């Protein structure tokens, strides 16, 4: 498998923001154009379910299908441009120690858990509930349930087979692996640190993520 790994020269000591996001929690903030966001898979094989919105026009938001179609590839990796529903570049992956990330699998929800695992899983915490809490706690942004569409799963490995199958494989990620994005415009970033307890991909043990932000002038 061809992958492209690119380490970053940015130093955590020079970051202007640094925060640990525990599993089952969310993080939402606005990135200014050219700021760089690093998401760290602190203990390995965690999933960072992530959405982006054009801060000036929330209807212009990350589009998984436009992104994979225009790059002619289902996997995200260093160099991938994250496109919006209007065809704008919201951000670009500028460093990545993992090699590929998923944007087909979407976010977990209580309702999809009933289908995937068992009807009685409906009340378990999920990424969708974290997304909904994030936009409800920050309702000044004007976001609601209709804005919560198909996300990126940073650090997730979802291989597609040539005969059209889809599998959820063990992650390519590991402790301390990270991905970095440079904002191409002012964007709202919404991350759910996945609380999934039913999927062997994280060994049934969701763990913390860390986010760091650098200003453009440190580059």
């Amino acid at each position, binding site marked *: 498998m061809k992958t492209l790994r690119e380490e970053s020269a940015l130093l955590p000591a020079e970051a202007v923001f640094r925060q640990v996001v525990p599993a089952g929690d969310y993080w939402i903030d606005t990135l200014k154009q050219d700021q760089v966001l690093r998401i760290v898979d602190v203990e390995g094989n965690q999933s960072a379910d992530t959405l982006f919105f054009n801060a000036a026009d929330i209807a212009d938001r990350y589009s998984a299908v*436009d992104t994979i179609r225009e790059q002619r590839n289902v996997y995200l990796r260093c160099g991938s441009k994250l496109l919006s529903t209007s065809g704008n570049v919201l951000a670009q992956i500028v460093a990545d120690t993992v090699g590929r990330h998923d944007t*087909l*699998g979407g976010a977990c929800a*209580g309702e*999809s858990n009933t*289908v995937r695992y068992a009807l009685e899983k409906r009340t378990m915490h999920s990424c969708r509930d974290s997304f909904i809490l994030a936009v409800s706690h920050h309702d000044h942004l004007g976001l609601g349930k209709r804005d919560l569409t198909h996300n990126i799963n940073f650090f997730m490995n979802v291989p597609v087979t040539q005969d059209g199958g889809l599998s959820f494989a063990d992650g390519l990620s590991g402790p301390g692996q990270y991905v970095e994005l440079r904002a191409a415009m002012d964007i709202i970033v919404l991350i759910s640190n996945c609380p999934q307890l039913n999927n062997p991909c994280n060994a049934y043990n969701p763990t913390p993520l860390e986010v760091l932000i650098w200003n453009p002038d440190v580059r």
Partner: protein
Amino acid sequence: MSGESAIYETLIEGGKHWSFTMRAGMQLRLIDSNGGANVGMLLYNPQNVLERYNAPDTLKCQHTFKLTKGHCLYSDMGRIFCSIIDDSVGWHDTVCGTSTQRLVAERWGERSYQQYRNGWTQNGQDAFLVEGAKYGLGRRDLAANVNWFGKVCAAEDGALSFDAANSPAGGYVDLRFEMDSLVLLHTCPHPLNMSDQYPRNPVLVRFSKAKPVGGDDFCVYSRPENARGFANTELYRLCGSEAGGGRAV
């Protein structure tokens, strides 16, 4: 399994759009009259349009990248809008989105309505916006759509390729609706179709009443996940939907 005789049939020319509601128990057949057609489709619950077709849930619940016979189209609420009870084509795409004004203009040039009338080059995104607005839906309500008759493969490294020869003339797919569904559709080209000319392929749309879901139904039992999806849908139809038991199961 073609269901009973047609209640209604109409030919949608290439590059057009339409919308309608299908009640639980209805069947929709799409026929690729000339071969090489594309039907972009989005689905919503007419009682609560916040419940909508969810491509990632559809794919991950059934561990598939393509759609074909035996697969069900899931809403984000763990329910099944419709199931694919027959398919002569074998592969339909739901990961490549739809064509946009920019894409059509770059690939085939813009043909204005002023000059070309209804021979203009309509795009999938505008088609969905026009149909969706009739039900109060806007840009924020669009999501990953199905592209019926479109085949897009992924190589081992993830590279995508579009198979222009996927759907022959007369190719068809049968959808049995398991809950009341608002259907937005268009016949604009697949966004990875690279033909020299704007493809303008007509699609025959046929409505009929579906046969009841039998005890050995192929879609219900194609995967254990689908049995649970049908259970969720049945509970909604019996207890939560306007029509009540739309039909006996």
